[in-house]
């Protein structure tokens, strides 16, 4: 006590205390967390915050009968319900003007794991991470998820998400059964054989056909994979992938294309996860790693020009360093996401995804050079990265983006929020969409709707059936959102 009292008298001691404390804070200042979601002073938004809207209220159902009651009441009162998972969709899919938002995060339990059948039954508001935590200790893993595990199961199925696995087809294919609440408030358990074909509309149905309450999804072994990376010329990719698909040695795959001025759309890297036949029970689920460094690298790349060349160089080195490393299936399905957080006021960073048939890829990429600028250093609209995924044919869902085997180009881009900046971005993305459509492709619907209604209809020729079925199954328009309002209604 005496010594402390004595020390406090010394300016150098207090000075050191300040320096130590400040260093600790400096290291712990969080990577910025964007404020989006359900509680923005009466307005709600989603991941981009581009479409703030006033809603009536947010409801969280306590249990299933409560959920049914809410839906039934909406039928009677003429209310509109939008369903929200974790709101990573970016075009107002989870809310509607003056409507009620059903927050599904209360339904997040793992209900049953069948080790023999390799299935898990889980509530729709749980995240893939919740599922991974439950099945990792018994050596199991999911068949299909996105590259990150931060999304809810209901949200992912409702956008018909896809990931890095090139063997198991679409995410919807891995669902054996599910419980839904229909627009009339009825609880139904449906399977793929269901004569009413509910699954066909619920998957990729953007919460417009009913509430997914729980699902039974197929699992596979949590295998250990070796990572194999390779640098390629863009022109060699399609044939390279063809070989990969026929080989069966590779379980998962994605690629990254250069958008740096020096190697713009010419150079790319492929990342494969190859079978080792070893099932893994011990490796823990990885947490977010090296967030600060990856964020710093991305921030540098965000400036474009020479700095983008530097960023691509760093990425190349990083990807090359992965070659030969081992990773479990579960860990390959939970990439970092925090480093992507971007909260510069007056600017927004968004995703878009364009799908193009595998066989037409090379010609498409050549033409794409005429649509997007090689060097965007001085432009407001900037492209930060493009990753390529494979999306296998899906003939099951109505709004299907993969009418044949497709490559999906996931694009991370940024632009300002002034009117002319938004319209400049919109016109560039619309040109890009036209090019994609001309090449027999489509674009992904969970992201911000830069596209026109016309482009939507060209991309999704079955939109008619979707709209008709919506009216038939939900005559009172109980389930509504801004996506439906803009594109379909």
């Amino acid at each position, binding site marked *: 006590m005496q010594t402390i009292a004595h020390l*406090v*008298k*010394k*300016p150098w001691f*207090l*000075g050191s*205390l*300040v320096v130590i*404390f*400040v260093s600790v*804070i*400096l290291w*712990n*200042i*969080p990577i*910025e*967390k964007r404020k989006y979601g359900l509680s923005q002073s009466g307005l709600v938004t989603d991941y981009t915050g581009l479409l703030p809207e006033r809603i009536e209220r947010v409801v969280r159902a306590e249990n299933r009968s409560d959920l049914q009651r809410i839906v039934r009441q909406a039928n009677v009162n003429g209310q509109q319900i939008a369903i929200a998972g974790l709101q990573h969709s970016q075009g107002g899919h989870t809310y509607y003007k003056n409507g009620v938002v059903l927050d599904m995060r209360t339904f997040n339990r793992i209900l049953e794991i069948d080790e023999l059948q390799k299935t898990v039954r889980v509530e729709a508001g749980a995240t893939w991470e919740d599922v991974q935590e439950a099945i990792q200790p018994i050596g199991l893993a999911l068949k299909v998820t996105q590259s990150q595990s931060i999304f809810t199961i209901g949200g992912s199925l409702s956008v018909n998400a896809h990931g890095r696995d090139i063997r198991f087809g679409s995410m919807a294919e891995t669902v054996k059964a599910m419980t839904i609440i229909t627009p009339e408030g009825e609880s139904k358990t449906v399977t793929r054989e269901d004569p009413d074909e509910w699954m066909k509309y619920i998957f990729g149905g953007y919460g417009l056909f009913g509430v997914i309450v729980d699902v039974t999804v197929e699992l596979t072994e949590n295998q250990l994979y070796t990572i194999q990376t390779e640098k390629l010329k863009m022109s060699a990719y399609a044939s390279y992938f063809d070989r990969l698909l026929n080989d069966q040695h590779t379980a998962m795959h994605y690629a990254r294309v250069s958008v740096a001025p020096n190697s713009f759309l010419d150079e790319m890297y492929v990342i494969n996860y190859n079978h080792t036949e070893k099932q893994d029970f011990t490796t823990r689920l990885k947490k977010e790693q090296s967030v600060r460094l990856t964020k710093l690298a991305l*921030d540098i790349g965000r400036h474009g020009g020479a700095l983008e060349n530097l960023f691509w160089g760093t990425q190349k080195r990083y990807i090359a360093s992965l070659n030969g490393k081992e990773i479990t299936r579960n860990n390959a399905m939970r990439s970092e996401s925090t480093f992507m957080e971007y*909260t*510069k*006021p007056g600017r927004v960073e968004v995703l878009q995804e364009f799908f193009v048939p595998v066989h037409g890829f090379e010609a498409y990429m050549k033409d794409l050079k005429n649509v997007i600028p090689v060097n965007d250093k001085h432009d407001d609209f900037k492209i930060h990265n493009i990753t390529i995924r494979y999306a296998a044919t899906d003939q099951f869902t109505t709004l299907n983006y993969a009418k044949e085997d497709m490559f999906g180009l996931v694009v991370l881009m940024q632009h300002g929020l002034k009117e002319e900046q938004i319209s400049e971005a919109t016109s560039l993305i619309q040109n890009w969409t036209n090019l994609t459509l001309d090449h027999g492709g489509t674009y992904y619907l969970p992201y911000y709707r830069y596209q026109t209604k016309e482009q939507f209809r060209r991309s999704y020729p079955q939109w008619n059936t979707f709209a008709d079925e919506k009216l038939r199954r939900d005559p009172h328009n109980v389930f509504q959102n801004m996506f439906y309002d803009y594109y379909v209604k």
Partner: protein
Amino acid sequence: MNHKSTRYLPLIVTVGQVVIFPYYIIWLKEVSLTFTLFAWFFAAFSFAAAWGYRIAQSRKKKDRSYIAIIYAGMGIVYVSIGGIKYSSDILPYVVLLLQVILGLLQGYFRAWHAEQDTYHLHTVHHYLIVGCAMIGFSFVKIISPVVFITTFGILMCMCAVWTLVIHEKEEVVIPRK
């Protein structure tokens, strides 16, 4: 003590600091990403203030106070807050630095002020003026707290200049205690 500046400038500073604090807190809340960080910013301020207080107390030459530098420092901090663009990438780091500087200056000023003869009189006046000022300010609608913060910064810079000018004269005219 004989001179008006020794009498009134510290009063302006103490009153100003308290009056500006609500606006400052609103600003700090806006730029802090989380409550934890907001609290840490305050902790940094307090530690730095303790440090500043001690530095002022352990001055060897009591008659050399550097008080003009303290005013100028505070002024510059508040004015630069007005100039900060909300580019959030480095903002928390800048704010942390400002908190430490401000804390240090504040602690030093407090220690120095407590040694002044006018201190006890100031304390009473200070409470009265702050009360009235806050009632007055509650009727003024502002768009952003930064407007007040910057204005106060400019006022502090003026105090610094005033002190410097007067101090020159003081050294000649007033015998030191």
